[in-house]
């Protein structure tokens, strides 16, 4: 029998307001095995931990139960406290009486009753706990960054500057991401390319950084410190070592009708292409769906024109397998599809565009060479209407329930830039709320109104009706004037909601990283661990974690890099000792466990066993504790009940069930 100490935390009034902690102490003290029970204001504080240490010493405790907040919050804290006090850290169990009791129940009697039951279950479990010792695993001193936008580039640069090798995997032919498509940035109106391109060049030139563009992560196995990743390098059909980036192939390519991804399909590109002039690497790829050579076998112009002899139609996809200690997800975002928003006539009129498309229109390298013009007839617009919150803050099935966060600011930016360059153009913004939390953000928005005379209307647009004369009739509400407005506009710009990149769910599944209903990756703790995934060794950078602007993305990228560096700097990692273990007297070597193990951690060895005096050699399951992650799938698959999970053994869980149902 263990000598158990129970420590009940008040958590200020968080627990004590709805749970009678004194009563819990009183009842639990009578449980078998409990030799000490006390309550304290904040068990996690230094004074609280000291109380544990004193009780361990004075009462010769062998097990500890802390009734407090979630084990996901402070289990590690109390395990460390136990270790300092001289008890094996795995002799500690937490009864979660905050998140699972005091915060959700109002009735004190009911809450106290439940707290006692949870405490009993924890005591019952500790009675069966055994001391466990973590093993050690090695750390591969190399990091992988998935996504080559500003988030990925910044993370990679920061990791590389700390002296570690980093690989960037980017799906498209060039790094740069969304930021490379943006014309100017708020609230300073810096030119986006001017601040991004040097970073792209720096990343490409960095001796510690390897960039795989036009590549995708195909398979991930392993765990923190020791991931193995297959990267598919898609065939470019251009030899990157030979190509000089002269661009002659793109000039001559006769297939010119593919919508340009970079320019948001506002103009076209050739079949052999680099997405934009500053692309890194400056090596084109051949789009086989558009290429005449690939479709009909005739043509081959690019190969003939290429002086370097770099074009190679026989190139094949290549799989690179590499080991990493940590993986950063920086897959970014896209704007949502507007197919469900017929009322804005986006699919009917080329003059209704998204804000990201407007960035391309305003950009000197864009489809209109930076001239603000209607895409239908090339005429200069005189009246432009901006519509905010298109698809953001929606609780219906058309849009997204969250605020996309960046739209208020970029709309103010667009409005301001237009009024600055074309003072005769009237700009109206329909808004629900203008949200400008950020340094110099509200000042920026006020400048748009006060200095540049942008007309902000509190209300929404109900519909946009294309007129026979080419204009767009905008019907909206002005809630402050309690009026309905009808306005003829030349252009309508939609502040379209952003969503995580479509591929992220696939990547999250490969990484076994948690993902929420909106496809944002979940952080390990919303406040305290915002750049880490709950899955050890996986880190989050940029919009993949939630909507954010460039400065926030860059800060988060740096934060993720520091976490990666902190991990890679270690020579050994302690592994979770809660691993599976087979009872060699019960195991009959049937292989059921190995069949369900997702990590290939189970093998079989002929072992000499002593079964009650009978010595014989049997085929026995052996668990490699460095590979086992402790899921417990094997324990249930085992037909003879030989396999058990340390720390969550059958007897332990059954004792919890018994305590709860008592």
């Amino acid at each position, binding site marked *: 029998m263990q000598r158990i100490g129970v420590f009940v935390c008040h958590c200020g009034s968080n627990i004590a307001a709805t749970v009678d902690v004194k009563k819990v102490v009183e009842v639990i003290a009578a449980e078998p095995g409990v030799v000490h029970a006390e309550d304290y204001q904040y068990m996690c504080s230094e004074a609280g931990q000291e109380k544990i240490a004193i009780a361990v010493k004075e009462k010769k405790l062998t097990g500890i139960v802390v009734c407090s907040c*979630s*084990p*996901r*919050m402070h289990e590690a804290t109390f395990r460390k406290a136990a270790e300092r006090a001289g008890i094996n850290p795995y002799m500690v169990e937490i009864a*979660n009486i*905050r*998140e*699972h*009791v005091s*915060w*959700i*129940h*109002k*009735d004190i*009697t*009911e*809450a106290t*009753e*439940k707290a006692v*039951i*949870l405490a009993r*279950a924890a005591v019952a479990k500790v009675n069966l706990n055994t001391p466990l010792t973590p093993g050690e695993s090695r750390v591969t001193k190399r990091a992988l960054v998935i996504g080559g936008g500003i988030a990925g580039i910044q993370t990679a640069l920061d990791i590389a500057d700390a002296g570690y090798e980093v690989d960037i995997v980017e799906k498209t032919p060039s790094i740069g991401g969304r930021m490379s498509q943006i014309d100017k940035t708020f609230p300073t109106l810096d030119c986006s390319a001017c601040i991004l391109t040097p970073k792209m060049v720096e990343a490409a030139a960095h001796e510690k950084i390897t960039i795989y563009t036009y590549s995708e992560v195909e398979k991930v196995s392993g765990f923190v410190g020791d991931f193995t990743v297959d990267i598919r390098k898609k065939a470019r059909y251009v030899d990157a070592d030979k190509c000089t980036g002269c661009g002659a192939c793109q000039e001559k390519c006769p297939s010119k009708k593919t919508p340009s991804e970079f320019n948001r399909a506002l103009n076209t590109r050739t079949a052999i292409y680099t997405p934009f002039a500053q692309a890194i690497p400056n090596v084109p790829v051949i789009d086989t769906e558009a290429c005449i050579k690939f479709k009909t076998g005739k043509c081959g112009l690019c190969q003939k024109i290429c002086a370097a002899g770099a074009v190679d139609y026989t190139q094949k996809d290549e799989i690179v397998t590499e080991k990493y200690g940590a993986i950063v997800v920086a897959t970014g975002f896209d704007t949502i599809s507007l197919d469900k928003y017929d009322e804005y006539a986006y699919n009917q009129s080329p003059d209704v565009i998204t804000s990201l498309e407007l960035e391309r229109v305003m950009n000197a390298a864009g489809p209109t060479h930076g001239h603000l013009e209607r895409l239908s007839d090339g005429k200069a617009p005189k009246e432009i209407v901006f519509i905010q919150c298109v698809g953001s803050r929606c609780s219906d099935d058309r849009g997204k329930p969250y605020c996309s966060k960046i739209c208020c600011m970029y709309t103010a930016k667009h409005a301001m830039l237009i009024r600055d360059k074309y003072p005769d153009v009237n700009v109206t913004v329909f808004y629900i709320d203008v949200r400008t939390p950020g340094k110099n953000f509200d000042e920026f928005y006020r400048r748009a109104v006060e200095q540049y005379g942008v007309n902000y209307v509190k209300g929404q647009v109900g519909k946009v009706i294309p007129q026979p004369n080419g204009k767009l009739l905008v019907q909206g509400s002005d809630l402050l004037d309690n009026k309905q407005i009808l306005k003829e506009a030349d252009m309508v710009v939609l502040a379209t909601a952003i969503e995580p990149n479509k591929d992220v*769910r696939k990547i*999250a*599944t490969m990484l*076994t990283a*948690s*993902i*929420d*209903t909106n496809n944002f990756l*979940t952080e390990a703790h919303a406040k305290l661990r915002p750049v880490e995934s*709950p*899955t050890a060794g996986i880190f989050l950078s940029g919009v993949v974690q939630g909507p954010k602007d460039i400065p926030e993305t860059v800060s988060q990228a740096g934060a993720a890099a520091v976490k990666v560096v902190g991990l890679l700097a270690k020579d050994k990692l302690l592994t979770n000792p*809660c691993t599976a273990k087979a009872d060699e007297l019960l195991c009959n070597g049937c292989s059921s466990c190995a069949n*369900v193990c*997702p990590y290939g951690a189970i093998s079989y060895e002929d072992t000499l066993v002593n079964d009650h005096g009978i010595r014989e050699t049997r085929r026995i399951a052996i668990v490699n504790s460095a590979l086992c*992650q*402790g*899921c*417990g*799938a094997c*324990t*249930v*698959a085992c037909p003879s009940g030989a396999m058990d*999970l340390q720390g*969550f053994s*059958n007897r332990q*869980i*059954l004792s*919890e*069930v*018994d305590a*709860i*149902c*008592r």
Partner: protein
Amino acid sequence: MSVNNEFKPKIVAFCCNWCSYAGADLAGSSRLSYPADVKIIRVPCSCRVNPMFILRAFEKGADGVIICGCHPGDCHYSTGNYYARRRMTMLFSMLDYIGVEKGRTRVEWVSAAEGVKFSETMNDFVAKIRDLGENVRLGDLRCKN
């Protein structure tokens, strides 16, 4: 036990550490209440739940058992919840056969971000169990006082 003759069901919820337990924590920190009849046992993965645990719960007088895991495809251990789903489908139909109604057992996928879903699921499950009343099957009479 119960002060006013109202039926207080005993409900055991097995929650996986990575998704559902975190979802329950989120329900807690968001103050989304559900009946105190639900008591949660933390397991590393829904695939750790041995059918034996569920039988034992009913034997000891539980009126309902719910297993919560990560959404299909999102399991922290890649495939654990698929095993849980298969095992529980088998077990529940056998339990139904011997008279433990289908409504007393359930598998639900709750992610770490779904505090609302966790609370709604528990409210709904408890309401169903209350409708079904006390479980009379499988109970070990020696366990009753």
